[in-house]
């Protein structure tokens, strides 16, 4: 069972909720927290005592290299590239590797075998253990744009672990990284806060999740912090509210320091409720 924690707007409390849902899932077999916010991986920050059991695994992509002596400058490679990563001007071919997604189309397009592929590292995935809780983190190299490659590689590594529950911490937004991070989940928890900014972005996130046909529930974080009416918004968008976390200055303070709120009974009970609801609704839909 895979539960993805996402939001639309950043900073609403995805990582906080994901980390604590993972803590609440310790009662299941081989619980795993998967950090797919690969541009800003912060979930492991909540588990400073987690042990790193093995060295980080590099995540590579195949990228083309030009063999200049074979290149005739025909420009068919540039024409084949949908990402603008290859330029052919006046018979001179140049490549911008930062834009390359490693699809390999240019290799097939080159009539003179002037392109070869080599492995290029785009990130790493790291595996940690905090007691019985496994933590798997994907991390994009700074300056690289291929977040989705890192997300998919981390998902594959997580998929090989036979856990009863996996909790994914997803990136903000509703474009490619978020789409890839929720893909394949059985249930999505959308974390919102009662502000106009958050509601606007929540609407986009709801349609993203519904578009993928995954059941979802909204958790209202920092409840009472702003005045925006999350309940009315969720009702209008057909999204159930499955949990509420009241705004307390003490929570903001310990949250800033990435300290777990496990001693906060009220909060942990709310996490149990959300987890139970996610398991129930998530199991109703069978996956492909």
């Amino acid at each position: 069972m895979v539960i993805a924690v996402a939001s639309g707007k950043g900073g609403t409390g995805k990582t906080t909720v994901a980390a604590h849902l993972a803590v609440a899932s310790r009662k299941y077999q081989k619980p795993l927290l998967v950090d797919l916010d690969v541009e800003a991986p912060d979930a492991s920050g909540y588990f400073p005592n987690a042990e790193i059991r093995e060295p980080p695994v590099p995540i590579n992509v195949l990228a083309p290299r030009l063999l200049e002596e074979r290149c005739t400058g025909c420009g068919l490679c540039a024409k084949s590239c949908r990402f603008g990563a290859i330029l052919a001007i006046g018979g001179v071919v140049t490549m911008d590797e930062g834009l390359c997604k490693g699809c390999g189309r240019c290799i097939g397009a080159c009539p003179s075998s002037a392109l070869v592929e080599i492995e290029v590292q785009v990130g790493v995935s790291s595996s940690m253990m905090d007691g019985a809780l496994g933590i798997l983190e994907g991390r994009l190299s700074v300056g690289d744009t291929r977040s989705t490659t890192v997300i998919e590689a981390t998902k594959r590594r997580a998929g090989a672990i036979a856990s009863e529950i996996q909790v994914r911490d997803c990136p903000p937004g509703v474009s490619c990284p978020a789409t890839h991070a929720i893909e394949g989940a059985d249930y999505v928890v959308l974390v919102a806060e009662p502000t106009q900014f958050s509601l606007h972005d929540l609407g986009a996130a709801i349609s993203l999740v519904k578009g993928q046909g995954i059941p979802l529930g909204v958790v209202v974080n920092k409840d009472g912090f702003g005045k925006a009416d999350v309940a009315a918004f969720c009702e209008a968008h057909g999204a159930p509210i499955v949990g509420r976390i009241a705004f307390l200055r003490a929570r903001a303070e310990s949250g800033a320091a990435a300290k777990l709120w496990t001693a906060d009974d009220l909060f942990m009970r709310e996490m149990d409720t959300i987890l139970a609801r996610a398991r129930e609704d998530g199991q109703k839909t069978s996956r492909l």
Partner: protein
Amino acid sequence: MSTISVASGKGGAGKTSIAAAIVSTLGLGCVFADCDVDAANGAIALGSTLKDQEAYFAGPGFRIEADACIGCGRCAASCRFGAILRKPETSIYTIMTELCERCGACQDNCPTRAIVAYEKRAGTLFVSETRQGIPLVHAELVPGEDTSGKLVRKVRDRAEQIAEGNSHIVIDAPPGIACPVIASLSGVELVVIVVEASASGIRDAERLIELVGSMKRKAVAIINKTGLDDTMDRRARELIDRAAIALAGEIPFDRALRSTEESGGTWLSLDGDVGTRIKAAIRFVLTVIDGPSRERMNGGHPKGEDHEVRNSDR
């Protein structure tokens, strides 16, 4: 013309509110480019009226025509992204749009030409006017659509068209460090790095600072949400110090900031200590970009040491 980009790494650090306050301070003559196309909130922050809009197309997507598919599987074998699967209990293949990167390799490899390209609106580009009469360029990506970096470029191009030679463009950048962020930072004169004084905020700012450094952009920092945890406040300052970035100011975590926004104001309308700190931080930012005697009306780009790195990065 000079461009200021407000970025943070972590989401929810206060980028939009700070960008909106900078825009309000500059007033007429600047253009606000909301490049957080996944979650565009600039229009909410400053209140705005829509003036113009246009559809945004990102390039074609692909689908497999079931009638023409012979189930050979060459498409699936050619796909590097695992986006093509055989439909359960059939012999034909289908493309999972949420995994497809739209490279077109499958189309090249289909012997029966069963794979067709189709154009689909991927978003909308808007031009609005804020209550103050400042042009605001923003956009909305259709949820699940790809290529947000390309849409960011469109937003910036439109903002540059609107901006007159001597005006400022203020960019509200998306969170993260990948394509849409790089597109929001490339070629700008100044990056305002918003560091949230929290464990996550500091770690994410550290990665952003590395990116800004590799792109050779000039930067200043604002620490936001101070006063929650002394250690985090100290670490945020140490990070900025280590990176040799000027600190424009610190803004304490204060619920009054939220109420100000709810009543339709920007952070500038706040009185007292917090309001004073915000105004001072923004003055600092504008001094860095315009020089000590800020004469916006006489135009021209300040001939600073960052001038030679103005060329775009990609």
